[in-house]
């Protein structure tokens, strides 16, 4: 039996093409391994080899999803692989989305086993963990060595059609499918150890994560809306034309704060959307459609609200990690409270 | 109290004195009937997933709800919705068995459901 043929998908950075300035790099194929592919190849030993590498810029992929996926898939297909490995993407959101899309589409359309690796908070995890196995990695390339080791071993198992065990055994991120396996210690002993750790404030891992509730207590209603200061906050990506703060089209790493003192209407010439997750035409024509400045100014004039807050806050919700979104909200909330805002209208897409 | 049941043994028992309502249907039908009552403000008094016999093994279910209806009780709603979800999870895999065992089984399942609701009624009576 010969070696398994592996194709490796990586982005422009790991493909040694460039950094942020090369995020628009179109898909290309190379013979053999590139960059971290070398480590994978070594880990495969005589069982498998990387016969080809497909490289694509993260922005190009995310902003041209359909076309890019097709191009990448055609390139992958040309190598006739037995198995496909994407990434690992660690905590890079756009790279994670690209790896997840590539791996899941390869499985679905080419019927070839595909895996990737990500840090548990990467937005790509929630989007793809039910479609493909995602090996759990550290949150930066410092975890490359461990990631390669686990991913390579797992890939070989998949290629050989072996039975896949529980997430804790194999190293993939729990995907909601419960799989039984035998632990070293019996349950009661695991419980005692867990309690000792919990009481001591030490880290422990629950064997069954409760479903995510994230219930938020609603605040009491505004007493007198005609006197209230209302602020606008959006995850729809509305920004001044030209996107001066370079808010990303997805996996936003920041939010913007913009002054609308004296602005009564958002126009095609003054505002646009940075969000890459919906058709931008309508929002670019009239950003009020996502951030209703015009209506609130009317209400202000008519005395229906006290006033529209001077600043609006904006980011893109598309593929943005929950942890990031929470952090932005906490920071924005603090400022709004300090500025005496009474209520917020939050818009998305 | 109102007792909602699809178990003839429970419904026909003269010793059970509270209001009774018979549902001619499956366990899920009983759960849905209870859920509809909870929506209009009745409170759940007994747990719908009584007993460890699974929803795809026994056809019988009896549930106690309050006679009075007030504001909708969130806890009651949570419990009944979770119970419906559990029921659906199990009845995907029905257990069928031969006719000659069927009769005896049904009598036994009916008895267990009956005993469990009698135990709940005993708790209710101690008020």
């Amino acid at each position, binding site marked *: 039996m010969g070696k398994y043929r592996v194709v490796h998908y990586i982005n422009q950075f790991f493909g040694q093409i460039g950094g942020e300035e090369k995020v628009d790099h179109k898909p290309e194929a190379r013979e053999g391994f590139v960059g971290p592919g070398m480590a994978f190849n070594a880990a495969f030993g005589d069982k498998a080899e990387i016969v080809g590498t497909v490289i694509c810029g993260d922005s190009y992929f995310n902003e041209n999803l359909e076309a890019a996926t097709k191009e990448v898939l055609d390139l992958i297909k040309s190598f006739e692989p037995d198995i496909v490995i994407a990434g690992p993407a660690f905590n890079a959101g756009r790279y994670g989305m690209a790896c997840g899309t590539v791996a899941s589409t390869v499985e679905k359309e080419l019927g070839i086993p595909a895996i990737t690796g990500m840090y548990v908070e990467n937005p790509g995890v929630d989007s793809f963990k039910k479609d493909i196995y995602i090996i759990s990695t550290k949150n930066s390339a410092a975890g490359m060595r461990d990631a390669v080791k686990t991913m390579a071993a797992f890939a070989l198992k998949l290629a050989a059609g072996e039975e896949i065990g*529980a*997430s*804790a055994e194999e190293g993939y991120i729990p995907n909601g*499918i*419960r*799989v*039984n*396996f*035998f*632990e070293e*210690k*019996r*349950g*009661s*002993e*695991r*419980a*005692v150890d*867990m*309690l*000792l750790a*919990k*009481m*001591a404030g030490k880290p*422990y891992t629950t*064997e*069954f994560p*409760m479903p995510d*509730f994230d219930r938020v207590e609603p605040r009491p209603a505004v007493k007198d809306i005609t006197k209230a200061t209302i602020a606008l906050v959006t995850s729809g990506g509305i920004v001044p034309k030209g996107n001066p703060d370079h808010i990303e089209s997805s996996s936003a790493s920041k939010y913007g704060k913009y002054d609308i003192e004296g602005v009564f209407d958002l126009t095609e010439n003054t505002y646009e959307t940075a969000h890459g997750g919906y058709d931008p035409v309508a929002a670019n024509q009239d950003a009020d459609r996502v951030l209703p400045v015009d209506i609130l100014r009317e209400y202000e004039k008519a005395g229906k609200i006290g006033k529209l807050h001077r600043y609006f806050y904006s980011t893109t919700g598309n593929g943005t990690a929950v942890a990031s979104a929470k952090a932005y909200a906490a920071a924005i909330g603090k400022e709004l409270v300090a500025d005496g805002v009474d209520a917020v209208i939050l818009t998305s897409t | 109290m109102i007792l909602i049941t699809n178990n003839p043994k429970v419904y026909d028992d003269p010793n059970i004195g509270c209001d009774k309502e018979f549902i001619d249907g499956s366990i899920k039908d009983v759960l849905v009937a209870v859920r509809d009552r909870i929506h209009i403000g009745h409170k*759940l008094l*007994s*747990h719908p*997933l*009584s*007993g*460890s*016999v*699974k929803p795809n*093994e026994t056809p019988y279910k009896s549930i*106690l709800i309050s006679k009075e209806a007030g504001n909708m009780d969130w806890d009651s709603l*949570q*419990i009944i919705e*979770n*119970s419906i979800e*559990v029921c659906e999870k199990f009845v995907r*895999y029905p*257990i*069928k*068995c031969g006719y000659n*065992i069927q009769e*005896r089984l049904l009598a*036994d*399942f009916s008895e*267990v459901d009956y*005993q*469990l*609701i009698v*135990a*709940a009624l005993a*708790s209710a009576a101690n008020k």
Partner: protein
Amino acid sequence: MKLELGHIHIHDIQFDSVSRVENGTLFVNAEELREHLLEDENIQSVSFEIARPGESIRILPVKDVIEPRVKVQGSGGIFPGILSKVSTVGSGRTHVLKGAAVVTTGKIVGFQEGIIDMSGPGADYTPFSKLNNLVVVCEPVDGLKQYAHEKAVRLAGLKAAAYLGKLAKDVDPDEVEVYETPSLKEGIEKYPDLPRVAYVQMLQTQGLLHDTYVYGVDMKHSLPTMIYPTELMDGAVVSGNCVSACDKNTTYHHLNNPVVHDLFAKHGTELNFVGIIITNENVYLADKERSSDWSAKLAEFFGVDGVIISQEGFGNPDTDLIMNCKKIEAKGIKTVIITDEYAGRDGASQSLADADASADAVVTGGNANMLVSLPPMEKVIGHPEVANVIAGGFEGSLQQDGTIVVELQAITGATNELGFNRLSAR
């Protein structure tokens, strides 16, 4: 309270004309035991079989499993309030026939559940495949009502275990373990710096075939209370629970409670095992509220820093479990809960019937819906034809050649929620 537990290791079991324990073999005079059990008018006939580890034997349907024990010193007798007087047990010395068990079987009520395979893949999922079992097959008198039938078989099992246990009374144990729980005051003085831990044990108490007895008292009628760990070792808690083979606690489980043992293992060194709070799992919702309030109140009163909560059974006990967890956590006491899962045959469904964010430290006994294929065994003790209607079975479960394809929930003790096994899930 202090108890010495003397273990007499049993490696084999044989029928013989004289019941005795000799060089690690348990000899049973079947005739004598049969007469003893037939003293119960409700039992029409009794037969016995032997099943040893590794043999190609399948036992089904299994009702209860009980370990033979006897009190050698100290107040009371085994299974207080049922076979013995109500005097408090748990102190002095008790002998155990370690490696032996009584397994009761028979068609009580419809769902014929509980499989024990003594070898093959099924043996890995039940702890009882490792024991030398005396299987007791009881037939009730005709027309016996379900309640009386269950009671008759339950008592027969306890009596058989007590009869065998007595054989250990004058035998020198191979090893002796000592378990001691100080009073609250002594404990604080002795272990001032150790974290204080209590064990909250939830007992199945729903009604017919779903009951647990503590000193003979039906626990559904009791408020939560405290009990010494060593009382469990003398049979203070007895199972009347016949449903859901995988996650019901057999009397054997109660006698050998693993949470108790593993807490004792670290008692005095890493923690102070203060004691046990036993509570129930009633169907009536107000009872659930009352009992969980009470357990939380007791935990707070005992001044503990953490508790382990174990449960029993399927479905509505998940509600008690979450109530207990939430209310105890709300008192500032850390919890770890032990449960099992019904995540569907594909493992993709919601595992529990209830949930809460405060239950953030969970140990699981595994997914009970997982399908297993149990190969045919040379001998089946009990009623093989019930495999189709066994919990977790389905039309076509029992194949021509004797193979049974069932969900894990059909195997006795498979996903035990006391943490008895190493099985888990992720």
